[in-house]
C-alpha cells in the first residue's frame, strides 16, 4: 500500500542537494522585504538537513508572504486567503512522510484565518508554521492589520488605527495543546535559521512568529528596534534556541527562560518595553492529531474490502 518503493531510501541516499535544488521562481518581493531573508533561511535549512525536495511541501494562504511556495522548488500549495492551516493539516493527515512548511501573514493568520489558527494549534499536527508579521496588509496596499500598532495610519485608518494590536504570541500560548512557540526577527538571519531549525525538529506544530520588515509601506517601522539592541529581549536557555556568541555580545538585554515553563512563557509574551526573541514554550509530549489521522494508511485492499463486506452484511435482509 501507500505506493512507496521499498528501496527509495537507498535511492535518496545517493542524492545530494544543493541550494539551487530548493530555489524556485525568482522572488518578486520588494527589495529589502523581510520575506527574502526568511526564504533564504528556509532554503539553507532544507539544504543543511538534506530535505528531499519532492517530499517537502510549502503551504500558504494569500498575501505578500504567501507567495512563499512559488519561490521554493519543492511541492507547494498557494491556496486561499486565511486557509493555509486547514490545507496543511489535510496534506499532513495521510502523509507522515512529508516535510511541511506553512507561510502565513498577519492578515492571513490573525484576521481572516483566526479560527483555523486556533484549531491548528490544538490539532498539533507536525509542521512548521511561520507567521511573517509585518503589521500591515501589503498585497492590497497598506491597510491596518490586527497586529498594527495603535494610531497607525493606513488607507483604512487615515486618522490612525483605533485599537491596540493583537498579540499573536499570547494568543497562541493561550491555546490548549500549543506545543512550540517562538519569535524571531527577519534582520537577524542567524537567529531566524536557528529558530526554524528547532521548529523543524519539533514533533508537532511549531509556531514561529517572525517580525518582518516592509520597506514599501512601513519604511522604518522596526528601525528603533534595529538601531537599539536593548529593545530586544534575548531569551536564552540550554533547552532554547542555540545562540551564537556574537549575538550574546550584541544583545545585552537577556533573560534565561526555561521553555518548559508555560506560565513564564506567557509573561514574556506580554513584554511591553522590549521585543522578546527566542523560544517561549516547547512541549514534545503534547497530543498529536496527525498520529490519529494517519491510522489505516497501510491497510491492504483485501483488508479494506473485508471490512466493507462485513458492514454491508449488517444490512442484509
Amino acid at each position, binding site marked *: 500500500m*501507500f*505506493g*512507496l*518503493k521499498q528501496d*527509495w531510501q537507498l535511492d535518496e541516499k545517493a542524492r545530494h542537494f544543493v541550494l539551487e535544488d530548493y530555489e524556485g*521562481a525568482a522572488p518578486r518581493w520588494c527589495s529589502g522585504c523581510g520575506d527574502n531573508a526568511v526564504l533564504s533561511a528556509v532554503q539553507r535549512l532544507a539544504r543543511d538537513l538534506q530535505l528531499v*525536495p*519532492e*517530499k517537502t*511541501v*510549502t*503551504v500558504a494562504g*494569500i498575501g505578500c508572504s504567501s507567495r512563499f*511556495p*512559488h519561490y*521554493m*522548488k*519543492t*511541492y*507547494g*500549495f*498557494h*491556496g*486561499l486567503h486565511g*486557509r493555509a*492551516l*486547514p*490545507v*496543511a*493539516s*489535510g*496534506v*499532513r*493527515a*495521510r*502523509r507522515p512522510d*512529508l516535510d511541511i512548511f506553512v507561510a502565513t501573514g498577519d492578515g492571513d493568520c490573525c484576521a481572516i484565518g483566526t*479560527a*483555523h489558527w*486556533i*484549531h491548528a494549534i490544538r490539532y498539533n499536527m507536525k509542521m512548521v508554521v511561520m507567521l511573517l508579521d509585518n503589521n500591515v496588509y501589503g498585497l492590497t496596499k497598506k491597510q491596518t492589520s490586527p497586529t498594527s500598532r495603535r494610531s497607525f495610519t493606513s488607507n483604512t485608518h487615515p486618522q490612525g488605527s483605533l485599537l491596540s494590536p493583537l498579540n499573536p504570541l499570547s494568543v497562541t500560548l493561550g491555546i490548549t495543546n500549543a506545543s512550540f512557540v517562538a519569535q524571531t526577527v527577519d534582520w537577524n538571519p542567524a537567529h531566524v535559521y536557528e529558530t526554524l531549525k528547532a521548529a523543524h525538529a519539533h514533533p508537532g506544530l511549531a509556531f514561529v512568529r517572525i517580525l518582518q520588515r516592509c520597506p514599501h509601506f512601513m519604511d522604518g517601522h522596526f528601525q528603533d528596534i534595529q538601531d537599539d539592541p536593548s529593545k530586544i529581549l534575548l531569551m536564552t536557555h540550554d533547552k532554547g534556541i542555540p545562540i551564537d556568541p556574537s549575538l550574546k555580545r550584541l544583545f545585552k538585554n537577556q533573560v534565561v527562560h526555561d521553555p518548559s515553563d508555560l506560565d513564564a512563557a506567557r509573561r514574556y509574551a506580554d513584554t511591553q518595553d522590549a521585543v522578546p526573541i527566542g523560544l517561549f514554550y516547547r512541549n514534545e509530549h503534547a497530543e498529536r492529531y496527525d498520529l490519529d*489521522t494517519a*491510522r*489505516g*494508511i497501510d*491497510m491492504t*485492499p*483485501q*483488508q*479494506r*474490502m473485508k*471490512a*466493507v*463486506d*462485513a*458492514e*454491508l452484511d449488517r*444490512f*442484509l*435482509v
Partner: protein
Amino acid sequence: MTTSATVATDQAPRPATIRTVSQHIVEFVSDSGEGAQTAGQLFGTIAAKSGNGVWTVEIIPAEVEPPARSRAGASGNRVRVGTKEVTNMGDTADIVIAFNEQVLYSRIDVGALKQGTMILLENKWAKSGLPGVPEAYAEALADFARRGYVVVEVPMEAECLKVVKDARRGKNIWCLGLLCAVYDLDMQHVEVELKRKLGKKSAEVVANNIALLTSGRTWGDANIEMRFNVPVEPTTQTMVVMNGNQAIALGAMAAGFEVCSMYPITPATSVSHHLASVFHRSGGFVHQAEDEIAAIGFALGCAYAGKTPLTVTSGPGLALKTEFIGLAVMAELPIVLVDVQRGGPSTGLPTRVEQGDLLSVLFAEPGDAPKIILAPATIAECFDFMITARKLAETFRGPVMVLTDANLATGQQPFPRPELKEEWLAPPIDQSAWDRTVRPYEWDPATGLSQRPIPGQRNGNYVLTGLAHDEHSRVAYESSINQHSMEMRSRKLATLLDSLKPPTVRGDDTGDLLVVGWGSTLGAIDEAIDRLRAEGHRISSVHLRYLSPMEPGLKEIFARFKKVMTVEINYSDDVNAAGFTAQNRRYSQLAFLLRAQTLCDVDCWSRVPGSPLSPSMIENALRTHLTKG
C-alpha cells in the same frame, strides 16, 4: 371496529378478519423523545427483511426537545410497505399509531390521513390530571369521528406499566408489538431485529423490551379485530436495507475513500455518523473540522497529497465552502462533495426536504467554475454514485458534487446487495518518478484532461495556485493563457458528455406530456405517471442523473412531445397566481437549466412543502396540464 371512537377492552379474543393488501402505509407519531422514530425504523427494517418492498420517511420535529403534546413537536416515521418494490412515501396513511392526539393533528394538517384511516391512540389523556387535557382529548375524538377516522383507543401506558416502571421509555416497543398483531408478524424475526437494534444494551434492558413487545402483541391479539396481510413475493436476490445517508457512507467505504472531512449540519451529518462508527475498519477516518470552510480546506489538502477526500454538507455549509470549491475547479483537485439538500435560503427548513441547491451548486463560484454534478434518485444509487463520483473526480481532476436530499437521507429502501470489486477502491498513492517533460497541467487540447503529480513523486514538483496559471502551474496574467485554461477546464465536461448516453424515456417516446425530474422524486413521479397512463393519458417521463454536464439528447426527446415540464421540490412562480405572467415568472431550477440548454419551452410544476411530493400531488398537478392540452 367499524364505528369510530371504540374503546377496546381486554376481554376474550375477537375473531380476526384478515384483509390482504398489495401495499399499506403505517405511521408512528409521538412527542419528540418517545421513540416513535425508532419503532418506525424497526418496523420498516422488519418488513424489508421479511421480503416486502419498503420506503420510510422520517417525521422530524424542528427542535431537539419541543414542548410535549404540541403539533410542532411531532416526531415519528412513515413506513410504506408493499408486495412489490416501493419507491416513494405514497399518499395517505392506512394506520397511524399516535401517542397523543395533538401530534396527530400535525399529520392531519399536512393531509397525511384520509377517511377510514385507522388510528391507534393512547387513551391515558382521557383521565389526565393536566388542566385542559381531558377536554382537548375528548374534543379531538369527536373531531376525528366527524372526519371519518376509525379510532381505536389503546391503554398504551397502562399496559406498559404492567411490564416496566417507566412507560415513557418503552411505549414505542409495546406499540411495535401491537402492530405485530395487526400484521400477524413472525415474532421470532421481530425479536431478532429488536435485539440487533438494542446492540450492547444490558440483559435487563433487552428482557424489558422483549416483555414490552410480547405484551403489545398479546394485547393486540386480544383486542384488535382487523388484520392486514401484505404478501411477499419470493426472491432469490440477496438484499440489503438502509437509508440514503447510510448508503452514501457504505458507498464511500466501498469506493475506497479514506477521508471524510466534515462539519456538523442537518441533514447531512448522519452520513458522517455512520462513517465515524465504522470507517476505521476499512482504514478511513472522519475529520470533524472547526468550520465548513476548514472541512473542505482539509479535504483539499488530502486531495493535493494524493487521497481523494469526501466532504458532506447541506445548503448553508455549501455556501461557506464556495470559495474552496472554486479553488478545486481552478487548481483541478479531485474531491467529492455530497450536498444533502434541505430547505433554503439561509437557515430555511433544516430538517426538511427541498431540491433547492441545484443552481447554487452549479453557479455559486465567481467566474466560470465548471464541475460535475450527479443526483442519485434511489437509495441504491446513493451507494453506487459514490464509486462513480470518486472515479470521475480523479479522471476529470476536479470536484464532483453529489446532490441528495433529506428524503433520500432518511428514507429506507431495500436494494440488491452490492458485490464489492477491488477496482472500486482507490489505487495507492503514486510515488514513482514523474516524467519531467510532462507539465503539471499538460492539458490535452482535445479533452482538457491532464495528469497531476503527487507530492513524493520525484521531478513532479510544482506549486498549485488558485491564480490563473499556465500548464507549468506558473502564475499567468496573459489573456491568451487565461482564455485557453478556462477552455481546457470547460472542455473536460464536454469530454465527459461525449461518454454519456441519452436518458431512457419511461413510457412511450412520443406523447402529449413529458415530465422531467431529478433526485428523490423519481418514485413519486413514476407512480403518478403510471396512474395517468392507466387512465389513457399520453404521458411519459425522463429522470436525470447527470445535471452537469446535462445528459445528451434532451432536445431530440423533448421534440417528440407536445409539452415538456419539470416536477421539482423547489420554488417557482405559479403562473396562475396573481401578478405572475408567462413573461415575468421565475422557473424552477431544472426548468431554468433545461430552457437555457435546449431552447425548448419547458414548463414546470414545483412546490416547497417541506416534505416529499406525494404521487397524488403530482398526479393532480399533471392532470391539470393534460386537460389544458
